[in-house]
């Protein structure tokens, strides 16, 4: 009796989520299948998606690279934080959180100031007599921007998992004759797998859909799928093509996260550990 009643509490929620998440996706599908000028049914938008597959490929490639770099940099940091005293842990955790609360637009803009041809880094290099580096406008700069922006999204879930690993397991492994590398590969790494997977997802998804980072740090040849979608809506006035592209992006992300979740096994709420 009681259970039945409290189930009713979720009614408005289900209604809300249907109305504002599922139905909008349906509307997006509707736009993707209609012509921008006449509003008639058409498959042209889907056909034209072929043009953008290389761009999608570039976006996926950049985001995979940055997710891997984030993992490489983030894991040692998360491991380091997780093995401090509780108070130090809190402080370091806070310091990782803090940049996430500040405007990423301005922080990325600061990188433009740092990396520009006549930017801070090059001025300093010039003063040291070391010549200049031309990073801005290259794919390297875009990946750097992604790593910079999404590194905390990797560190936090990793830390949350690593800090929970039972020390006795490690001791047991050592007692049973494992050396440091073996302990890491056979105990620590498998146990931190859920953190790794959710970290990769949390870096990959925003990175693959970004348009701001590539606009600011990229050049003429680093157009990403996010840029294309933004342009379809905000300058080309072709929401239908934009909707088709968004649909493609969404499916791609679904497939990628789906594959990851299959590797990662169950864990109902594992997606978001911050």
């Amino acid at each position, binding site marked *: 009796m009681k259970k039945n009643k*409290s189930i009713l509490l979720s009614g408005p929620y289900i209604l809300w*989520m249907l109305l504002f998440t599922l139905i909008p996706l349906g509307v997006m599908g509707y736009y993707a299948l209609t012509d921008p000028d006449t509003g008639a049914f058409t498959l042209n938008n889907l056909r034209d998606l072929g043009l953008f597959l290389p761009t999608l490929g570039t976006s996926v490639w950049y985001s995979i690279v940055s997710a891997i770099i984030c993992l490489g940099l983030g894991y040692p940091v998360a491991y380091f934080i997780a093995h401090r005293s509780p108070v130090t842990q809190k*402080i370091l955790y806070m310091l990782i959180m803090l940049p996430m609360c*500040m405007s990423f637009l301005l922080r990325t803009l600061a990188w433009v100031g740092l990396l520009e041809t006549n930017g801070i880094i090059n001025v300093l290099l010039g003063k040291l007599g070391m010549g200049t580096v031309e990073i801005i406008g290259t794919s390297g700069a875009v990946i750097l921007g992604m790593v910079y922006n999404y590194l905390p999204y990797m560190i936090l879930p990793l830390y949350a998992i690593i800090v929970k690993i039972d020390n006795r397991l490690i001791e047991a492994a050592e007692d049973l004759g494992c050396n440091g590398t073996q302990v890491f590969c056979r105990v620590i790494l498998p146990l931190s797998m859920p953190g790794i997977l959710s970290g990769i997802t949390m870096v990959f998804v925003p990175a693959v859909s970004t*348009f701001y980072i590539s606009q600011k740090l990229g050049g003429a040849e680093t*157009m990403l799928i996010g840029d294309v*979608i933004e342009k379809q809506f905000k300058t080309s006035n*072709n929401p239908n093509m934009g909707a088709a592209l968004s649909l493609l992006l969404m*499916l791609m992300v679904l497939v990628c996260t789906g594959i990851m979740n299959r590797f990662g096994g*169950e864990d109902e709420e594992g997606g978001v550990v911050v």
Partner: protein
Amino acid sequence: MKKTNRILTILIFAFLYLPMLVLVVASFNTGKNLTIFEGFTLDQYKALFQDKDLLALLGNSLLISILSTAIATAFGTFSAVGIHSMKPRLRKTVMSLTNIPMTNPDIVTGISLSLLFVFIGSALLHQKESLNFWTLLIAHITFNLPYVILNVMPKLKQMNPALQDAAMDLGCTPVQSFFKVTLHEIMPGIVSGAIMAFTMSLDDFVISYFVSGNGFLTLPVEIYSYTKKPMQPRVYAMFTLLFLLIFVLMVAMNLLQIRSDRKKLIKQVKPVSSRQKTFRRVCAIACAIAILLGCGWLILSTRQNKVTLNVMNWGQNIADGSDGTLDIIAAFEEKYPDIDVNYTTYDSNESLYAKLAGGGLTVDLIIPSDYMIARLKQENMLLPLNFDNIPNYKYVQEAFKNTAYDPENKYSVPYTWGTVGIIYNAKFVDEADVTGWELLWNEKYKGKILQFDNSRDAFGVAQFLSGISINTTDAEELRQSANKLAEQNPLVRQYVMDQIYSIMEGENAWIAPYYAGDCMMMMDANPDLRFYLPEEQGFNLFIDAMCIPTCSENKDAAEKFINFLCEPEISGANMDYICYGSPIEGARDYMDEYLAESDVIYPDQSILDKGVSYLFLPAETNRLMDNLFMEIRIAGQQPEEEEEASALPVVLTLSGLAAAAALLFLPKRKHK
């Protein structure tokens, strides 16, 4: 191993904090440039507190995030209780619904919501302003809800169900047992969910960018348009203050938590006396009322009795009071105290068109260029003006009446006119190379060349170079021009609009085609920059004129503004800042002498005669041009002739859908 970890951690923290340090330092800089520190000053902070717009935007952001967090927290908590009592299978389905906004990229969430709102608002309800405060609030609640649910659910799971039963055995009703027992147990989850929702909402850019109209903007959305223009350093000051505020808040929260953890370790928490309880409740209620009153006041203060005039103009296209110029909007508001100008910007005719055609906005005054006026007129998107309200129209010079885009002078009043030429940096560019538009195709300057980020102007440049009419509708000729642009693509550093200022002034690129007035402003900032007009090959001569779109709700106020801008003295003062030619008789006399005499702004009539105007093009031509331009941008290869219609992407999309569905549902089966 440990040592390398320590060093790496320190390096990573340096990496994370370096850009923020740059911004903090910039907030004390006397210069405007991020890279050169000219001297220490606190002026930016003073400017920040005088900048009502920026503070209002911060207020908007706080309002939206507080309201959406409060609603999502309450709503989400109750819903979580409901979901918790579901059978596992149903619960799983609902949770995957909850996960949609979490796993979808923000851009998809934003776009799908904005399409829904525009679809419902414009197509079904025939509302003019379908993107407004309420749609923004709904969007924020929608992406906040999952954070609350995902934080509360685990706490509900951890809770001992016997507790609730015990409370009911002791005589509580289910509702009482919820408030007395359950709520207390799941409180940590609610709090962390609310904090997460609040930070996400306050800092959200992508979703808000697509869902907000021009009536109610949040700080991140407006910062985005700031980052496209030359940055106002006061924004850095705001960043610094926010950084300090968040830092202090975080430290305080951590200290409180550490203290309470210690207390718990030392001894059990003392039972709270009923007096303390009442005190706490009173405090909580007082806080709630204060917050609500604050929000209410904010809402009311943004909606005073004043009439709001929504003006949309190009970036850097009105005198704003900086560098000793007249602040036109402030002067207008002073003259008409009952009108409040809401000023937003766009960076190309095409993006203005997309905003208007996308629907969902209320705009009272726009200043597009000639060809766009013709297009808007053709598509019935402009209202005829009432010239009785614009007596100053008499000052408009004859040359700007009866134009091709508005032959009967019904829809527009000219604002500025100018030319499109090449701006180059004489320090790096050999004068011998400056012979015409081909400078932009010169291999010598690879990577130092900029190009327009809008199809019409970019095509125009290519067409002047190849001797094709800039008003051609011939698909073959358009493809030729596109090929020309594709040829240029590897040399181009970036496709820009308003961002050109910082790039050219900072000497990060050396050559760009741009509008003369803007070039003049850049030349003011960097004396090595020069302007060149390729007279022989031809160049674009444009007029920007003020129009009232059909989505206007304050035509009278808009006409007052038009009239105000036509006063010779005001127009002259305006041109002092924006550096364009004024179509108003006598305005030139009010301009600074060096500007009034400049041949960049007022070239000889013999040269002007060689200028060509953009004319109205049919919709298919515009679409073709947009598509060709997009192809150049994404591929950088020569656009192919007549693509074979291929079913491959369709098949790919559908199979992707099938794969996604399979992946989503298979693990479920594995579970059973």
